[in-house]
């Protein structure tokens, strides 16, 4: 992804009206490295408690990355749900079960599994060349003004709210959101049934 961003930046340099094609800033690069390292540590940590904590750090790194990619709504969700709530729920579950003490900090690498994951990684990495760079004028988001631009320019006139993301969620795609809300509600009921409890508190 870093490479694709850099090459597209060079390609876009000749275009007279160049929107901000994002260069990979040092902060962004270190965030990417942090996310990859914490993801690896989550997979390899021998202790479940350590894995849960490092996974929380991974989610926080992803939330910071989303802010860099100008998706603050997604970043808020990632920080609140993944880094916060999920970590707490996993820790609670760990506390209710037994945890085995380990001498070694990391699991020894399972080579067949690593090879399978590596193949998947290579396959996915090959597709990144076709993904438009962040902020690229050729990205479908910009090169398809009839759709994207309509939402950006007409949302306030049609719905009366400034936040296009919320307008899409609550109005344009409101029926999907109703389904999501019902899924969350059903998750609460499912937890009660699975744990054979009759009340929450």
């Amino acid at each position: 992804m870093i490479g694709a961003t850099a090459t597209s930046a060079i390609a876009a340099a000749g275009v007279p009206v160049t929107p901000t094609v994002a260069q990979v800033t040092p902060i962004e690069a270190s965030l990417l490295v942090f996310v990859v390292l914490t993801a690896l540590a989550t997979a390899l940590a021998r202790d479940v408690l350590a894995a849960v904590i490092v996974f929380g750090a991974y989610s926080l790194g992803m939330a910071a990355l989303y802010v860099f990619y100008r998706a603050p709504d997604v970043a808020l969700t990632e920080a609140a749900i993944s880094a916060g709530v999920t970590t707490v729920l996993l820790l609670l579950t760990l506390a209710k079960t037994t945890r085995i003490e380990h001498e070694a900090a990391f699991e020894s690498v399972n080579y067949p599994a690593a090879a399978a994951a590596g193949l998947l990684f290579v396959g996915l990495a090959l597709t990144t060349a076709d993904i438009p760079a962040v902020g690229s004028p050729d990205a479908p988001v910009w090169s398809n003004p009839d759709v994207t631009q309509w939402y950006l320019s007409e949302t306030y006139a049609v719905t009366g709210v400034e936040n296009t993301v919320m307008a899409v969620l609550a109005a344009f795609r409101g029926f999907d959101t109703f389904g999501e809300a019902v899924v969350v509600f059903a998750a609460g009921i499912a937890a009660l049934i699975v744990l054979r409890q009759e009340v929450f508190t």
Partner: protein
Amino acid sequence: MSDASEPDGRRETIDSEGRVDGTSPTSPTSRSDRLGTTPQQGTPYTESQVIMSTVKFVSPFALTYGLFVTFHGGGSPGGGFQGGAIAAAVVFMIAFAFGIDATRRWLANAVVVGLAVGGALVFAAIGLVPVALGGAFLQYDLLPVPLLDPVKYGMEAVEILGIATIVSGVLTGLFFVLASGFNRDGLDESVVSRQVNGDTDADRGAHERGES
């Protein structure tokens, strides 16, 4: 409920866990010891003046931020889902600082259930009222709201009274129901004893066949 379900099953697991930790050759004050076993709670709890003071100070601001994210979702990043999660996280913080069972006693079950069910009902009602008036699901401009813009305030109502309440209620409920764990009351006794002894159905079947 918490008092009623607490007795036998739960105390048993604590004792067995405690023995496991106690016989482990590593330090008895290791982190797993603190996290796994606290006799009086049955859930992880370490009373800390630092944590309690910090949570006392931070939680009003965190709750305010959650409400801001919810109520200001139309004009800034955020909305009901994120704000509801932050509001639920405030309850997590309070439980983390003051103990889960103390927080459980403070927070009535009717509040949690009311938030979740009420949110689902409000969302469904806002969606179905336009249908009853001959429009489409969630067709906000048909909402019979006097004086206010029905589209804008219909969306705000869905975000604030629908999504935020469902998310905060369900997340809080998940937290407490996970903390109280699996309820063995009412289970078949033979099933319970088999689970405790670690026998599987296959073992038991083989055993019975050997006897007969």
